Structure formats: structure tokens, C-alpha cells
């Protein structure tokens, strides 16, 4: 049993982990940079420690400082969350060398999977199918040289990459050089490593990933799939489980491949094996994420497994608590981003003057922000994950649409309306989701499906609010007579 865990992350995922620690009766220590002071996650921890310094390098990526805090505050373990240091083998090793428990797989497993080229080679050897492509070790010249043999359209991917950074699709050979330069530059800035490799771009394919869980008692299981095909700029926005593209046979086949992938690197903990599935039903290994995943809640909703609690259990050396896979109903997650979908989904900033999240049956909100918080360009623009569960896919879509319509965010642009319309889009309703669907459906950018009556109604509201100084005059207009004595309602009967 772990006693005290340091959560080396921030925002929404830090909240998720800190709550799991509370439930598991593990004490928790949060760390926060100056510009995160007073945010939600710092209040959910038993102890919150201010990181010294500015910028990511001096704070959330500062291995030395984080380890010192862990030791100073008597922690016995570190949970890295996702992003930041979660897939840094060197840090995992340093944590273990300091005598602490690393809540995640071994540094060996992280580095085998973290370097995408090594991962490809390892998977090929383990008999897991990989996408046709070329591993490249040299610089720009070698990329240009191997591209023709891979064929167009192709995808340039950062070897050290993730999250769509350093990834470029090239449809036209004429753009290869400039796109390769851009990918290398992005990769260098994001990961400090400018190597890229070349892969065939599988058009019209689906992005489907398998959740795996492995403990130190030799048990490796899969928890079914997540369909994450709906993406913009190679970042996921809409995830669901189960996928309409999988029958139980293909699920078992992919599940077996995912477990084989995990076992090939002696994987321990929660991990995700990503696959591309072609319209013909062939599947190819894409990569393995050696950490908890952003979209883990959809798996939790349909399998009833608490993945973060299992991570804590497994890290403590206990056997996992889940039994046979039993998927039930349908779950969908959407990612609420601070961004402007009408302007190529460009990140947006501003203050969350109003932030009213939906509630009701089957609705779960994972967020790290509250009304009044500032959205700054300092961190990832994801504000919240909204997850719904319902007995069927159709009901889940209806529930998500209802929940999104209730969601009020004012003061910062978000993709709420885009997500709402997605829920009733015929392609989504029919389950024809592919990784290129957003670019295909809205090649010239998305704009809301708005009737003139909506615009007129909005204009009326704005004009009236301006005229009556809405929001500022309430205190004056209500006056003193509004105070009702609590005793006057004492004997009132409520139905």
C-alpha cells in the first residue's frame, strides 16, 4: 500500500489522480508553478508545494526540483499523469534510484515504446502488424531520399513525438521539403529531438486503441477499445467505447495483439496500444502510450474499472482487482478546448466569466478549471472532458448533445457548439468516423449552423443587456424588500 504520493502534474489530470488518492486513502502532495496558484488541483491535495522558477523547464519538467520536493515531504511514490514527465524514462529511473515508487511502467518499457522507431522494430519482432513505412536515422536528406519508396500521401512523424506535434501529412511531393523542415522544427521545439520518420498515410482509416493493464503478478489483460477517429490537427476531440467498427472477434484479435505488445516490453501498469484500422478491417500498430490516457474515462464507464485506482494498486505490488472483461452500454467523451473552431481551431484565451457545467444522469465532468479562472497561453488549451454513459450508442449521442447544450462558457471561445453539432452529424450518428473526417467535411473551416432567428435573438439579448446594464444593476433594482425572513418559510410544506 502506498502511503504518500506526489502528483507531478497539473490541471484536470492532477485533479483526477488526487481524488483517486483520497479515495484510496493515500496522502497526496501537489506541486504547482506560480501561475497555477489557487487553481483547483492545488486545493484537492493534502499538501501543495510551490515550484520555484518560471516556464515549464524550471517547473513541471524540472526533475531535480520535483524529486527534492518528493523527498522533503516524505513521499514514497510519484504519479506523473500524462504529458510532462510521464513518458520520460530518465526521470522514471531517477525516481526509482531515489528509492521511490514510479507509478508507471519500467524505464525500459518507456524507452522501448517512446522512441517510435525502436517501437516499430520491437513490434515487428513481436509479430504485431506495423504500418508500411521507413525508419530513418539521418536528417533531412535521408527523409527526402526514402519518401518516394514509401509513396504519397505520406505522414512525417517525430520519432520522439506525441500529441500531433511534429507531425505533417504530405499529399504533394512538391511540399515534402518545406513540410519536413516544419516537422523537424516543431519536433525540436517540443521534444528537443528533431528526428522524424516516414510512414504511409492510410486514408479513411480509423484510430482505435486498446486499453491494457498489467500487474507484477504476471497478469496482462485488455479492457476493450476506444474509438478516437474524430480528430482535428491530429488531436482527438471525440472518443467513444465500444467502436462500431469492431465485432467481438476483431476486438479479441486486437486485444491479443495489444497484450502481446505490452508483454514484449514487460509492461506494468495502465497503458494504451494505438492501432489504425483500415476500412477492410486490417489493423496496424501505431504506437503505445506508456501512461494513463486523456480519454481513459470512456473505458472506465463501460468496463466499470477505475484505472487510476488500479495504477495505485499495481504500483504498490498488489494484484489488479478486475476480473473478466464485461463491457456494458456506451460511453462518449468530448474534449472541451479553449479554441476558435471558426478560425481553424486556433487556441483562444480569456477569463471564464461564466462556466456552468451540465449535470444529470450519466454525465461526468473531468476538469481543472472553475468559473473565474483565466485561460492563458501558458498551458494546453483543454478546459474539460465531458463524458456520458448510456445504455446504447444512440442514447449516448442524445445525452451528450443535451449535456453540451446545457454547458455555458462565456468569456473565452470554446468548441462547445462544434461538439454539439458533431453529435447529430449524420456521419457521426452512422458511426462513419475517420481520422480525416473534419478536414473532409469542413475543408474551408467550420462555422456554426445558425439560423437568422438565433442571430436576431442573440442580438436582442445583447441590446437589452446593454440597455439595462444587465449583471451590474441587479443589486440596485432588487433593493431591500427582497430579503425574506427564513422563518416565514418554516412551516411551508413541499410536495
Amino acid at each position, binding site marked *: 500500500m502506498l502511503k504518500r504520493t506526489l502528483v507531478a502534474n497539473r490541471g484536470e489530470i492532477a485533479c483526477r489522480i488526487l481524488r483517486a488518492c483520497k479515495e484510496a486513502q493515500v496522502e497526496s502532495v501537489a506541486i504547482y508553478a506560480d501561475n497555477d496558484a489557487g487553481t483547483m488541483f492545488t486545493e484537492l491535495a493534502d499538501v501543495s508545494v510551490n515550484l520555484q522558477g518560471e516556464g515549464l523547464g524550471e517547473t513541471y519538467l524540472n526533475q531535480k526540483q520535483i524529486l527534492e520536493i518528493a523527498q522533503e515531504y516524505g513521499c514514497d511514490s510519484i504519479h506523473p499523469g500524462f504529458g510532462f514527465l510521464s513518458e520520460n524514462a530518465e526521470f522514471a529511473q531517477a525516481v526509482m534510484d531515489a528509492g521511490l515508487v514510479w507509478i508507471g511502467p519500467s524505464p525500459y518499457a518507456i524507452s522501448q515504446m517512446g522512441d517510435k522507431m525502436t517501437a516499430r522494430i520491437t513490434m515487428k519482432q513481436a509479430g504485431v502488424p506495423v504500418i508500411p513505412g521507413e525508419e530513418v536515422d539521418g536528417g533531412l536528406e535521408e527523409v527526402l531520399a526514402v519518401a518516394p519508396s514509401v509513396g504519397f500521401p505520406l505522414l512525417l512523424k517525430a520519432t520522439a513525438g506525441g500529441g500531433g*506535434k511534429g507531425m505533417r501529412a504530405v499529399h504533394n511531393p512538391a511540399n515534402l521539403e518545406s513540410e519536413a523542415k*516544419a516537422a523537424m*522544427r*516543431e519536433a525540436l*521545439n*517540443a521534444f528537443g529531438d528533431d528526428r522524424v520518420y516516414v510512414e504511409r498515410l492510410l486514408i479513411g482509416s480509423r484510430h482505435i486503441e486498446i486499453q491494457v493493464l498489467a500487474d507484477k503478478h504476471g497478469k496482462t489483460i485488455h479492457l476493450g477499445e476506444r474509438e478516437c477517429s474524430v480528430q482535428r*490537427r491530429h488531436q482527438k476531440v471525440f472518443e467513444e467505447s465500444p467502436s462500431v467498427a469492431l465485432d467481438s472477434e476483431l476486438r479479441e484479435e486486437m486485444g491479443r495483439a495489444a497484450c502481446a505488445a505490452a508483454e514484449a516490453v514487460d509492461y506494468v501498469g495502465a497503458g494504451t496500444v494505438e492501432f489504425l484500422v483500415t476500412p477492410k478491417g486490417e489493423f496496424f500498430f501505431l504506437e503505445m502510450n506508456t501512461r494513463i490516457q486523456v480519454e481513459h474515462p470512456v473505458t472506465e464507464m463501460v468496463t466499470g474499472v477505475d484505472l487510476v485506482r488500479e495504477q495505485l494498486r499495481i504500483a504498490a505490488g498488489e494484484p489488479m482487482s478486475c476480473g473478466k472483461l464485461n463491457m456494458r452500454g456506451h460511453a462518449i467523451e468530448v474534449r472541451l478546448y479553449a479554441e476558435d473552431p*471558426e*478560425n481553424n481551431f*486556433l*487556441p483562444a*484565451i*480569456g*477569463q471564464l*466569466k*461564466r462556466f*456552468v457545467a451540465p449535470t444529470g444522469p450519466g454525465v461526468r465532468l473531468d476538469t481543472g478549471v472553475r468559473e473565474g479562472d483565466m485561460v492563458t*497561453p501558458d498551458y*494546453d*488549451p483543454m478546459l474539460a472532458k465531458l463524458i456520458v454513459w448510456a445504455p446504447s450508442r444512440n442514447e449516448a449521442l442524445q445525452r451528450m448533445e443535451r449535456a*453540451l*447544450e*446545457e454547458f*455555458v*462558457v*462565456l*468569456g473565452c471561445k*470554446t468548441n*462547445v*457548439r462544434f461538439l*454539439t453539432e458533431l453529435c447529430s452529424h449524420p456521419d457521426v450518428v452512422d458511426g462513419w468516423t475517420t481520422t480525416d473526417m473534419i478536414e473532409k467535411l469542413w475543408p474551408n473551416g467550420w462555422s*456554426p449552423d*445558425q439560423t437568422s*432567428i*438565433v*442571430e*436576431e*435573438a*442573440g*442580438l*436582442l*439579448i*445583447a*441590446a*437589452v*443587456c*446593454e*440597455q*439595462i446594464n*444587465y*449583471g451590474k444593476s441587479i443589486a440596485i433594482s432588487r433593493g431591500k424588500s427582497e430579503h425574506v425572513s427564513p422563518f416565514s418559510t418554516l412551516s411551508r410544506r413541499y410536495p
Partner: protein
Amino acid sequence: MEFKTGGGKMEIEPHRDGSMFSHNGLVLHTGNGLWLEIDGRKYKAEAVKVGDTWWVHFMGHTLQFEVVEPGASGGEEDGNLTAPMPGKVLEVFVTEGQQVSAGDQLLIMEAMKMEHKIVADRDAVVETVHFSAGDQVTQGAELIKLSD
């Protein structure tokens, strides 16, 4: 009353009857929060003012309306290419005096770890380049000025 939206300028003078306002058959009740009435059905609305802009939410829609002060000049924004986000200039492809065509890449900047291309919106001559590679820019900063 005049407002600016993404689609242009709009004017409206709602009719007032106590705490009830109406326009073109639409009714807004303001007695207890904001309630929009359309065809006999009522919908809850939320509104908040940030700077000069009213942010409005109702029926799952979020809209913005910027108040245009009476008498304000309709200052047309032209020839300016501004930073969409705070970030860093990575590469500048043009020099002052250079002729460019619509669609030409002028500059690449990085914001939130993603690259954004700044592209010429018309055929023009580069009048001023305000930044060079490596410079930090704030949101809305003019990056390049074009003249016809």
C-alpha cells in the same frame, strides 16, 4: 443601438414594456434572470459583458456582440497582418519592398507549441516587417504591413 459581430454590423432598437422587451416577434423577459420567448416557448439565457463585448448563451448557442459606441469611426482594418496568439516568430520569408501575391507565405510563428502560417490576403507590396525570427510577439501585434 449598434453592434459588431463576426458577420458585420447590426442595428437594433428593441421595444420596451416594463421588464419585457421585444423585437420582430421575439420576446425577452428580464424580471428574474433572462428568458427568451420564441413561439410561446421559453428558453433560459445567460449574458455577461467582457470589455465592450456581450457574450450570450441560449439554446446551446454562444454568440458575441461588440458594442459600437455612437459616433465611433468605423475604422476599417486593412493591410495589417496581426498575431492571432501570443507566441514566437520562427521564420520571416519576405523583406520590405517585396511584391507578394495573395496566398504567399509571409511568416511562420509558433504559439502554444503549434506552428501558424501568416499568409498574404491579397496581392500587395510589403511595406513594413515588424519582427524577425526569434522575437516574441503579443496577441494582436501587427507583424507585417502590406500596401497596395
